[in-house]
């Protein structure tokens, strides 16, 4: 199975796909949430573009329609006021009352002022040469009509009705006809402008539609790519996990086979009667004891990892004395340390406060760190166990740290971020035939975090490593809690 997976991987190690796979593998470590976040960002940006485009199209449509409506209203008002100018003049003919005649003359003059204003506004908004010329022509024709109109009004007010009618027929009617034609021309030009605006609007609407289609397609494409990437990321993640589990099984099998082989061989020798004498028997007993303990420890480690993985292992946090923790772990690992020919230096800062933790948890955590130090220290057989207090960070209070310092092979900086991953084994370590399951540091980290602490590492290749367990200092109310159940706490130590 492992070979098939490796083969499958190797076959893809060419071209763009391997690069994508590396990226997706990296992304898979942070779960698919990151990719989903990217997709959401993409959709939000696209949505913003769509909304902006629609708003621009709506604004353009609104501008066009309001411009058309305003233009039509202006033209309508211009025509009405021109008619009103003439109507009021002619009404003055219908009465001999000078007061009424003056009122009609006044109405006519008010209307003609509005027409003048309207023509001036049309001229000021004229963009094309044709429009400017038309505005000038209209202004001239209107002035010409007003000249006649003034004469007609004067005649009416003087009481010369016949003269007024004659003047209007000879000069007023043709002059007003010219004005009417000019106004029709204004209307025609405006109709052309409105037609062009509508055509532009249609083009703009069509462009917006195409943009929407393009953006929609792009969104679909992006969503498809994201789904593909998420699925692939999950698949790669599953493959990687399967690979790690296979390696773990192989590693555990190997770790079990060695003591089993020793046990088997020792049992065969005893059964075959090859072990004779009390001293030889004692030697074989020691071997059997050591190997069975080694196997038991391995099985315990696997069971502990399984319990932290599914969250069934709950720690009871209580105030603990640092000295007791250190003494306990020194005692517990004395056989391991001495058996490997190591010396454990114990340095405890005086007057350390009580820490918050679980006795078995801290013990297991430190045991794993010391075992690692023993395993990866080659010739320099000295390990330091140092307990001290230090500030958490610039803003927070203090904490207690217990460091395990070795002068071993050290860790490459590129591997530092992986060493706490479950089942991770450094290629360098594998090459050096140093056995292990890849669970020790992962377990230590999980246990520390379960107790509200953490494990940190600083290392230099070929110089040594320092693994530090950070523990919270117990506070007042937690001390109170201990006072009520102090016996059980101390008995667990």
């Amino acid at each position, binding site marked *: 199975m492992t070979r098939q997976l490796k083969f499958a991987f190797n076959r893809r190690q060419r071209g763009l796909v391997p690069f994508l796979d590396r990226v997706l593998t990296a992304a898979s470590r942070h779960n698919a949430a990151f990719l989903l976040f990217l997709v959401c960002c993409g959709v939000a940006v696209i949505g913003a573009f769509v909304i902006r485009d629609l708003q621009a199209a709506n604004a353009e449509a609104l501008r066009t329609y309001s411009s058309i409506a305003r233009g039509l209203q202006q033209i309508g008002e211009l025509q009405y006021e021109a008619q009103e100018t003439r109507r009021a003049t002619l009404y003055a003919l219908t009465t001999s009352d*000078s*007061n009424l005649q*003056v009122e009609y*003359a*006044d109405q006519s003059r008010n209307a003609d002022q509005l027409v003048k204003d309207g023509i001036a506004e049309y001229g000021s908004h004229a963009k094309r040469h044709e429009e400017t010329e038309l505005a000038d022509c209209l202004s001239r024709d209107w002035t010409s009509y007003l000249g006649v109109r*003034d004469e007609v*009004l*004067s005649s009416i*007010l*003087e*009481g010369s009705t016949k003269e007024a009618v004659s003047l209007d027929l000879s000069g007023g009617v043709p002059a007003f006809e010219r004005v009417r034609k000019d106004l029709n021309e204004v209307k025609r030009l405006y109709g052309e402008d409105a037609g062009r605006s509508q055509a532009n609007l249609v083009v703009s609407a069509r462009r917006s539609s195409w943009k929407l289609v393009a953006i929609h397609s792009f969104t679909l494409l992006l969503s498809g790519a994201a789904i593909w990437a998420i699925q692939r990321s999950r698949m790669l993640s599953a493959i990687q996990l399967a690979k790690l589990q296979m390696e773990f099984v192989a590693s555990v099998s190997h770790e079990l086979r060695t003591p089993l082989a020793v046990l088997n061989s020792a049992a065969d020798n005893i059964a075959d009667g090859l072990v004779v004498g009390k001293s030889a028997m004692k030697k074989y007993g020691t071997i059997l004891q050591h190997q069975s303990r080694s196997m038991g420890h391995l099985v315990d480690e696997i069971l502990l990892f399984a319990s932290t993985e599914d969250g069934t292992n709950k720690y009871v946090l209580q105030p603990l004395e640092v000295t007791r923790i250190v003494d306990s772990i020194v005692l517990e690992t004395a056989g391991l340390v001495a058996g490997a020919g190591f010396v454990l230096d114990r340095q405890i800062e005086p007057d350390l406060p009580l820490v918050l933790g679980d006795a078995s948890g801290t013990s297991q955590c430190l045991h794993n760190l010391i075992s690692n130090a023993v395993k990866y220290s080659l010739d320099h057989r000295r390990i330091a166990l140092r307990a001290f207090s230090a500030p958490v960070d610039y803003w927070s209070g203090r904490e207690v740290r217990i460091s395990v310092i070795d002068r071993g092979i050290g860790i490459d900086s590129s591997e530092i971020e992986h060493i706490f991953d479950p089942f991770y084994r450094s290629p360098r370590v594998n090459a050096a035939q140093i056995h292990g399951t890849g669970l020790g540091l992962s377990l230590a980290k999980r246990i520390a975090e379960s107790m509200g602490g953490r494990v940190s590492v600083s290392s230099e290749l070929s110089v040594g490593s320092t693994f530090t367990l950070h523990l919270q200092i117990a506070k007042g109310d937690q001390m109170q809690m201990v006072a009520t159940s102090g016996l059980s706490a101390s008995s667990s130590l």
Partner: protein
Amino acid sequence: MLRRLTAILIIVALAVWPQPEAAGSSARSSSAAAAEQGTATVPLVIVVNRSNPVNELSQAELRKIFLGSRSHWANGRRITLVMRDPSDLERKTILRDVCGMNEDQFKNHFLHGLFTGEILVSPKILSTPAGVRKFIFNVPGAIGYLRISDLDDSIKVVRIDELLPEDKGYKLHVLSQAGN
């Protein structure tokens, strides 16, 4: 018979005589008369269209115009006389101080002139100062009168005997509205 004839002549003379005497008395400044009575007056101005080249008129010319004896301006434009309602105080002042007539005499004069053809057009009657202003503004040959407070830039004031309303010796004054 002779006694009857003499009596009729005396009655007619009595009926006619006092009125010219009243008109003649108007030769005195109306403002002086008003001052004697202790009432306030405001100048009454003669106004024409701004296009009219005439800037000054004599009292005699003004009388001719207001009595319809003169029908055209020097530039050939027909003169259109604008007056207020008969009940109006300004009209009474003009009739008294310019025409030297009362309302009835003025009416009779125009009736007679129109009947005989000596006068071509009767005066136009406007009921408000604004109406007078607008009429004169619209008709180039129009002439009328206004209180000085009713003036605006749309029309032009002419001097009378070289005097403007603010000059000393200006004769046309009307009782102020408060004094009415």
